[in-house]
């Protein structure tokens, strides 16, 4: 028999190679390039100029604020609405399967498609604006409030909430179906009212799933590219959009700034994930 450590090593080798080379390696290369390293070119020197320049750039500051705002608002809305949708569907007596299928229908739709749908729905000449016109509320596209390419990022948030509510909802539904009703009945016989049953029976059961999904929603909405590109403004744009703008610049001199932004995104997401895990862990333990 092959010794155990060797066996485990062989099993892990392919995945660790892919992740190590592309993920860790890619990140390390990004850090190096953000510090001035120019692969395959002579005459580069180490420096932190890129970080200094993005720090000084008001566009980047506005971008950080926008990216955080969009990610936080989307995550909170999707989490609250997702949990509410799951609780609602769980208590439905008729058409439960149908409503679940409707909720789940946005899950497999690519975000790019979602972004297009929001464009066709929310833009000044979109469906809602036409409905407003038909209802006599507005007289022209310009009268309709700017929901796309706006300062706040309404359409971006709407797209994220549309898809991620379903994600949170379906995961919570999966945890709810496992015998929650019997537990609630048991709590009822012990004298627990509706709020107490939610607080002491349902919430502890769904908390880990809600924590995990909302974390993923935040990380995704923070780092996503195509949705803000289609539905947002060119200025301020979210961090990934700005990073790729720098990267696609014909002037190779802006490469270090692009890399610095990529590093900032990765570090911010990493930091938020760690902080979130620490607090949510405590929260999940407390509700139990």
């Amino acid at each position, binding site marked *: 028999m092959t010794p155990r450590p060797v066996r*485990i090593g062989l*099993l*892990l*080798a*392919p*995945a660790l190679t*892919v*992740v190590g080379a*592309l*993920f860790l390696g*890619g*990140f390390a*290369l*990004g*850090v190096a390039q953000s510090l001035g390293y120019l692969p*395959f070119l002579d005459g580069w020197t180490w420096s932190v100029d890129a970080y200094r320049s993005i720090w000084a750039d008001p566009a980047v500051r506005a971008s950080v604020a926008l990216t955080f705002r969009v990610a936080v608002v989307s995550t909170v809305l999707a989490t609250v609405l997702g949990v509410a949708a799951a609780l*609602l569907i769980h208590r439905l007596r008729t058409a439960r399967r149908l*409503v679940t299928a*409707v*909720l789940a*229908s*946005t*899950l*497999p*739709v*690519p975000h*790019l498609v979602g972004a*297009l749908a929001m*464009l*066709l*729905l929310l833009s000044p000449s979109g*469906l809602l*604006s*036409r409905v407003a*016109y*038909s209802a006599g509320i507005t007289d022209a*596209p310009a009268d309709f409030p700017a929901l796309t390419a706006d300062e706040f990022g309404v359409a971006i948030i709407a797209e994220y909430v549309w898809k991620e509510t*379903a*994600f949170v909802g379906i*995961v919570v539904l*999966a*945890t709810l179906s496992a015998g929650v009703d019997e537990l609630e009945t048991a709590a009822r016989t012990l004298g627990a009212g509706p709020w107490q049953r939610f607080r002491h029976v349902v919430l502890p059961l769904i908390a880990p799933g809600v924590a*995990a*999904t909302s*974390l993923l*929603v935040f*990380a995704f909405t*923070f*780092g*996503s*590219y195509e949705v803000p590109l*289609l539905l947002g403004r060119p200025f301020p744009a979210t961090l990934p959009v700005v*990073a*790729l703008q720098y*990267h696609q610049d014909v002037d190779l001199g802006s490469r270090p700034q692009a*890399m610095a932004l*990529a590093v900032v*995104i*990765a570090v911010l*997401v990493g930091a938020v994930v760690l902080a979130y895990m620490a607090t949510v862990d405590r929260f999940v333990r407390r509700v139990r």
Partner: protein
Amino acid sequence: MRRPLATWVLVVGVLLPFVPLAGWAVSGRWEYPALVPQQLSGRGLGLLTDPGSRVLSGLLTSLTIGVVVTVLALLVGTPAGRALGLYTFRGKRGVQFLVLAPAIVPGLAVLLGTQVFFLRYGLADTVAGVVLVHLVPTVPYVTLVTASAFANLDVGYEDQARVLGAGPARVFVHVTLPLLRPALVVAGFFAFLISWSEYVLTLLIGGGTVQTLPLLLFAFVRGADLTEAAAVALLLSAPPLVLVGLVVRHLPRGHGPLIGLGRL
């Protein structure tokens, strides 16, 4: 009576964005402020079957990349799932963290630095290069799903098969593989869907030369031909909807396998 109202709000809210999408796909003319298309047309949907359009070649590229990525991700991710699901070993938490990190940290942020190397070694603008970067978001997911399947796998079955005369390879083929089939099907479907929906990594490494359907859709949206764009959007959404509809019944218990949905 609040419950039916809330249910209707939910259903309408979810389905509303599909309405203009479907409308544009079949419209010939739909100007502001008309509520319904002024003219219906098969132009958008006809595009999907027109060999002269770029849509069919985009579809082929997307399918090729998706299938190859799925096979590779299963081959690379499943052994790691076995190691993480069946064994405890020193450094396991670290390995877990490392293998699953790409599922959380945005791919663009870590892969931006590799583009120049893909370019240098002739992998940029190639299908092979795109396949390689698509492994980053898919392998962690396959590992996650198979690890939970292996953790629930009763190794007694494998022992029993050994005692009944099956060597390691035949145990794998006749016992382990059939027992893991639901998990592998789910992992494979989602690996395919993640690759199928991927936009920014394809753009970064494929450089616009490798034209998958999402890139094509983006080009159509930017080209302001909304009928073309809506038709391609429907084509892009149809296979995932069908696939998820098929596998959703077979999802293993627990929410681990569902997490991949958040990546789509």
